[in-house]
């Protein structure tokens, strides 16, 4: 009997592993082709030149760096200071130095496993385009990408340790506010200093001779950033300047090693005392909470039926009283605000309709990616966050449908509204007339976007809610399928194996979306350039190609999500 049970379990585990392998493998292949295609498209079709291409890579890496940095900071707060495992280890003969190192490395590798896979696939796609030799890949991974990511993680833990140290003297909420402002300012400053629009305009003056090295255009402060070192490493590898390549590898490895040593020294000095501080922070939050004044008070009557009302109120309080939820939300929202304030005033003077379409698509897909990130971070863990208290829903007269849809609509209404705002703001340059500098100094003229471009902008605002609904459904529905009621930390839930699989599937959807959107976007900018009439069939067909599969996906993931709620608890 034992053998039979074991065999069944082994078959089940093997099936799951095979399934994971297929999804991860497919994604790796997809990331390879995508990176290969984007590289080829920008360099061969749009002809932006090697220098500009690598500056875009550098900007993408900056966002990547900040994301890893913030992600590690929030995860480290939970695992170093709010983890029962650390409490348990500290009550045993394990030194707090070892606990710090183990939890720090655990955080890094836990949250970065998929990123290694994605990074490698993207590098492979990039390398194949340039026919780079085999030794590029191990060097780029071990000497550049891993140190780059590790550097972000070390910085995150250093900031966290310092914040926790200061928390004994300064109000914790004030510190969090300061951190948020600091990061938002940092992102704002980066894009202000690096000024991508100015750079594009300057480089394009030399068109078609854009393959020159325009290093003099790089602002000095940007050269101190690790994302710049990585993009320079790639640029010089492609242009076969191996002395510069070696220099940047050395710089990255040395900086990472130095920062790691500093992290260990700081951890050794501060971890235990800051852990004690975290206890006092926790005890400070023990207070009586009054229900009388709040709009969301359980005592207040609402126009919802009782079950809906208590579910909504419970969701609200669980969110606003959980620091790892609202802190992450505030940070993401602030970064979003910076991004939107930049793109809503975007004014790139480009001639080529293809290049205009690429810029438009980059902004469009980045919007969708942001929405997907928010849906993954906050939508995926929604069912799991019921935690061990899920018995309250299973044993009371509330149907699984009601509970499932109520939670879903909370997330969806918020995300769909947000997506419309994002879409509208990012389309402002394509929707409204604006004054531009004239030929003579002091002269201003009003430039009205062409009707085709305006139509494309309205079309994007129209399809964005459909796309958001699909992404929210995928994250929420698959979050139900992969529900883990034992995990309390929403960030760990959103970076679990199930979440990673979901993320990969949503990325496949995004890539397909991009492929579908490429033709109508280019067609509209060609209409603008040539002054030709809009072919409405293009937009109608695009709408159908996006909507019909999206509705099928929505139906499938919700069926799976609801079915999974029937499981024994």
């Amino acid at each position, binding site marked *: 009997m034992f053998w039979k049970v074991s065999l069944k379990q082994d078959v089940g585990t093997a099936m799951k592993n095979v399934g994971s392998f297929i999804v991860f493998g497919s994604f790796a292949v997809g990331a390879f082709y995508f990176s290969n295609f984007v590289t080829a498209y920008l360099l061969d079709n749009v002809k932006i030149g090697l220098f500009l291409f690598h500056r875009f890579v550098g900007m993408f890496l900056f966002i990547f760096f900040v994301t890893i940095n913030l992600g590690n900071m929030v995860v480290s707060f939970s695992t170093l200071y709010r983890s029962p495992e650390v409490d348990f280890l500290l009550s045993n003969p394990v030194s707090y130095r070892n606990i710090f190192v183990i939890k720090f490395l655990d955080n890094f590798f836990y949250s970065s496993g998929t990123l290694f896979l994605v990074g490698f696939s993207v590098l492979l796609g990039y390398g194949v385009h340039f026919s780079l030799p085999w030794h590029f890949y191990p060097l780029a991974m071990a000497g550049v990408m891993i140190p780059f990511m590790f550097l972000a993680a070390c910085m995150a833990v250093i900031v966290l340790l310092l914040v926790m140290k200061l928390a004994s003297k300064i109000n914790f909420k004030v510190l969090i506010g300061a951190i948020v402002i600091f990061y938002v300012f940092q992102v704002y400053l980066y894009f202000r200093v690096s000024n991508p629009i100015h750079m594009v305009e300057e480089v394009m003056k030399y068109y078609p001779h854009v393959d020159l090295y325009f290093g003099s255009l790089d602002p000095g402060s940007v050269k101190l950033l690790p994302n710049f070192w990585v993009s320079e490493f790639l640029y010089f590898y492609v242009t076969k300047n191996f002395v510069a390549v070696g220099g940047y590898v050395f710089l990255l490895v040395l900086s990472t090693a130095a920062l790691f040593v500093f992290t260990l020294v700081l951890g050794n000095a501060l971890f235990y005392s800051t852990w004690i501080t975290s206890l006092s922070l926790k005890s400070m*939050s023990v207070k009586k*909470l009054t229900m009388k004044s709040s709009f969301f008070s359980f005592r207040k009557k609402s126009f919802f039926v009782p079950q809906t009302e208590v579910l909504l109120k419970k969701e609200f309080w669980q969110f606003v009283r959980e620091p790892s939820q609202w802190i992450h939300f505030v940070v993401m929202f602030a970064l979003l605000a910076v991004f939107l304030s930049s793109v809503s005033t975007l004014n790139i003077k480009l001639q080529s309709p293809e290049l205009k379409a690429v810029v438009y698509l980059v902004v469009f897909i980045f919007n969708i990616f942001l929405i997907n990130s928010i849906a993954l971070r906050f939508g995926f863990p929604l069912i799991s966050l019921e935690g061990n*208290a899920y018995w309250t829903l299973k*044993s009371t007269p509330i149907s699984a449908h009601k509970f499932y849809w109520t939670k879903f609509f909370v997330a969806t209404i918020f995300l769909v509204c947000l997506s419309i705002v994002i879409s509208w703001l990012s389309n402002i340059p394509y929707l409204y007339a604006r004054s531009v500098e004239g030929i003579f100094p002091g002269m201003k003229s009003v430039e009205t976007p062409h009707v085709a471009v305006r139509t494309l902008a309205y079309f994007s605002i129209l399809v964005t809610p459909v796309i958001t609904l699909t992404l929210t459904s995928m994250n929420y529905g698959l979050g139900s399928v992969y529900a883990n009621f034992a995990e309390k930390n929403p960030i760990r839930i959103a970076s679990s194996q199930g979440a990673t699989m979901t993320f990969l599937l949503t990325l496949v959807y995004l890539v397909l979306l991009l492929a579908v959107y490429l033709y109508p976007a280019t067609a509209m900018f060609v209409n603008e350039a040539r002054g030709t009439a809009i072919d409405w069939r293009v937009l109608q067909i695009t709408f159908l190609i996006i909507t019909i599969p999206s509705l099928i996906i929505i139906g499938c993931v919700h069926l799976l999500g609801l079915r999974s709620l029937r499981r024994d608890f």
Partner: protein
Amino acid sequence: MIELKHLTKKFGSFTAVDDVSLSIPAGEFFGFLGPNGAGKTTTIKMMTGLFTPTDGQIIINGFDVVHQPMEAKSTFGYIPDHPYMYDKLTGREFIYYMGGLYRMEKEKLKESVEQVIDLLELASWIDKKTEDYSQGMRQRVTFASAFVHNPKNIIIDEPMVGLDPRSARIVKDTLKRRSKEGVSIFMSTHILEMAEELCDRIAIINKAKIIFLDTKENLNVHKVHYDGNLESVFLELTKEPYSE
């Protein structure tokens, strides 16, 4: 009224509950005893809708738990063995939340919440977040949330875990009073003295099967054959067969 008819639960080839049939009339205090892993919690989880039975039927107040879950669940209150709650809610909010899930109207709910808080003496700490509660405090709030909608049946899995003597007394007295008022109580416990003190009828489950089912009066007759206490009867009935 609670009825279990040929209730069976299998996990793969392992049978956790095997053909269990019981009937608990209104107002009866029923004790469900058994060693660890005998199938007590699995039975209760099937009764409360947390597990789906592999076979058999559970009828609570005339409603089938599997086929009429909403109607059946409206009639009982459940106290699990581990009183997990939403950490970020206060005890009072949790009781309101549970009342809302039972579709109670706000005015009636407010009145009932105050009553259960008074009854279980929770007032001094009920407005703190449940993450700061001890095991006993959680257990008492879970009792309050199970009583808040005035159920006709109460299903309890290990009620005394973490309760101090005063809280245990309050809980016992409340349960006794509810039973006298006509509420059926199905209680699983390891504490034999409590089963003897409170229950009208006792069943012992071992290795997924009911091996003893009788009234307290008849149990006293059985006890005479041993050394006069329930513990000896329990140990004898549930002992592992000797094998070489």
